[in-house]
């Protein structure tokens, strides 16, 4: 209904292969960006920043990464929490070793280190598939968390065993530590995530993305065509871990400020991010964002309704929340196993054909 595509014809391959070939979609994206950059920073406060926007952005980044591995390359991973921990601890070590370093290279380096670790744990994927691989990634999860708990070097031998982000800045503006402005941290994370969402989109619509999907859909045929399983799977692990590592760095340094491995990077984190991409939509960049938004907002909404409106006790509300999350997950899987992104796609198709049904 909103789509008026008549007259939007493509006279070149660049135009035809654009990320948003339809004008109305481009306008939609611009509108979102205008709100995100032009409106939100003026309305933001600590609550919105810490409870909603930063978690959303950090998790969106992690979901992007996991979606590359699971959604695009078809390799199930339950080790996201562990890889986020690698990113966080890498960032911590770099920040404490080089206190004056700009935060952008810190995040990138954390991502690269995580990518290396990810490749290491991705090696078994060459021999094992499916749930066997999923279980194998649990090894990464538990091993990594154990490592960060056990070896004092990682937390600079401090007494609490926690890591706390020292102040760091981007082009001279503080983005971590106690004295940050919510609009600044928000804008920083937003820009990072937006940029890397674009990168992810570029990857998945290029050769490497097609190779991932080929391995996902029919690995033997892919190999016969000349797609190398080794490099393809490991590249997916590397890129995925790079994103998850950066997400871990942002999560720890910008959002939480301090973290303790078992709590912040436990197996629950792995599941949370996995839920995000399943509910958002496997194999969809947009889905990563939708899933992250859903999983961040839903508990807040539920809590608001139950505790604030219905006056439920906080403990009971927590239980009900867990219960309802479970119900919602099952409900979603039954109604639309391909996630919010598919729902959006269906709706868009309908709008494009309106008033006709097909």
């Amino acid at each position: 209904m909103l789509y008026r595509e008549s007259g939007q014809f493509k006279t070149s391959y660049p135009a035809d292969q654009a990320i948003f070939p339809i004008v109305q979609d481009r306008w939609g994206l611009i509108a979102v960006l205008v709100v995100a950059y032009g409106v939100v920073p003026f309305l933001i406060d600590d609550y919105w920043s810490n409870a909603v926007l930063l978690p959303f952005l950090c998790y969106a980044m992690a979901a992007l990464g996991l979606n590359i591995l699971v959604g695009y390359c078809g390799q199930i991973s339950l080790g996201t929490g562990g890889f986020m921990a690698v990113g966080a601890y890498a960032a911590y070590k770099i920040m404490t070793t080089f206190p004056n370093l700009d935060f952008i290279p810190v995040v990138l380096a954390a991502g690269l280190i995580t990518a290396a670790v990810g490749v290491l744990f991705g090696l078994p994927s060459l021999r094992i598939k499916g749930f066997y691989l999923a279980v194998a990634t649990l090894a990464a999860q538990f091993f990594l968390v154990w490592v960060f708990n056990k070896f004092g070097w990682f937390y600079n031998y401090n007494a609490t065993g926690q890591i706390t982000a020292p102040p760091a800045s981007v082009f001279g503006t503080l983005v971590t530590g106690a004295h940050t402005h919510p609009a600044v941290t928000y804008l920083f994370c937003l820009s990072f995530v937006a940029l890397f969402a674009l990168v992810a989109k570029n990857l998945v619509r290029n050769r490497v993305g097609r190779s991932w999907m080929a391995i996902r859909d029919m690995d033997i045929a892919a190999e016969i065509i000349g797609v190398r399983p080794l490099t393809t799977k490991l590249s997916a692990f590397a890129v995925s871990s790079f994103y998850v590592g950066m997400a871990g760095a942002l999560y720890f340094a910008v959002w939480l400020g301090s973290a303790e491995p078992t709590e912040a990077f436990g197996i629950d984190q792995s599941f949370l991010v996995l839920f995000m991409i399943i509910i958002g939509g496997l194999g969809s960049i947009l889905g990563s964002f939708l899933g992250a938004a859903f999983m961040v907002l839903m508990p807040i909404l539920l809590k608001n309704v139950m505790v604030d409106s219905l006056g439920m006790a906080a403990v009971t509300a927590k239980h009900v929340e867990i219960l309802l999350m479970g119900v919602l997950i099952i409900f979603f899987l039954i109604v639309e196993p391909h996630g919010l992104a598919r729902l959006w796609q269906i709706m868009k198709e309908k709008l494009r054909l309106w008033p006709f049904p097909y």
Partner: protein
Amino acid sequence: MARQPIGDVLLKADNISLSFGGVKALSNISFDVREHELAAIIGPNGAGKSSMLNVINGFYHPQQGQITFKGQTRSRMKVHQAAVQGIARTFQNIALFKGMSVLDNLMTGRNLKMHSTMLEQAVYWGRARREELEHRGKVEEIIDFLNLESVRKTPVGRLPYGIQKRVELGRALAAEPSLLLLDEPMAGMNLEEKEDMCRFVLDVNEEFGTTIVLIEHDMGVVMDISDRVTVLDYGRLLAVGTPDEVRNNQEVIDAYLGVAND
């Protein structure tokens, strides 16, 4: 430019024997395929035709014998090396990438022709962009060649069987192979679809000069379009020759045609 004349030996199978856990799939098979030739391997189900294809493109490693392709002899190789050497194939049970569009399936077929690095692809600039656009153009030629225009952006999982077969042929062609292996390209098709597919196979051979090895259990179709036919039966080589020679071979008649005529 008419059809290219048949040239030198491109592929040579020497004394191939293959068995799985004691079961002989192929025993002492030798034959060759010449450049620009359209060769067929026929035989009833279980004759070892698919095993032979799998040996040629390195998916199975024969216990005995060797394959010579473009003058290079090998006994073992990695699967994707066959692709590097210019061997492409289709599968008896369609093995397309179901979640991807026709366009993306064909583009994946050109995987080996693309060389941009991941970093270039990440920013979609320079070589990566150039490559994408250039290869899109090539793939569009194949889409045009196989009349797939109306489905180019449809995920292949949603297409009817006959079209999927055609897309698979397209994916193999996208690699611009020097040897094309077709595993029962007409299986499960109705007469009209079979005729279309025959036309496409002949056109491929004619327009691109591609050497084709095609396996089929339905003799009728194959006899009409092949230059030479190799007949297998229970893993044994029964006969090699022109369609006419094979048709008149007593052993083939007994083992195969006789059955078909019952």
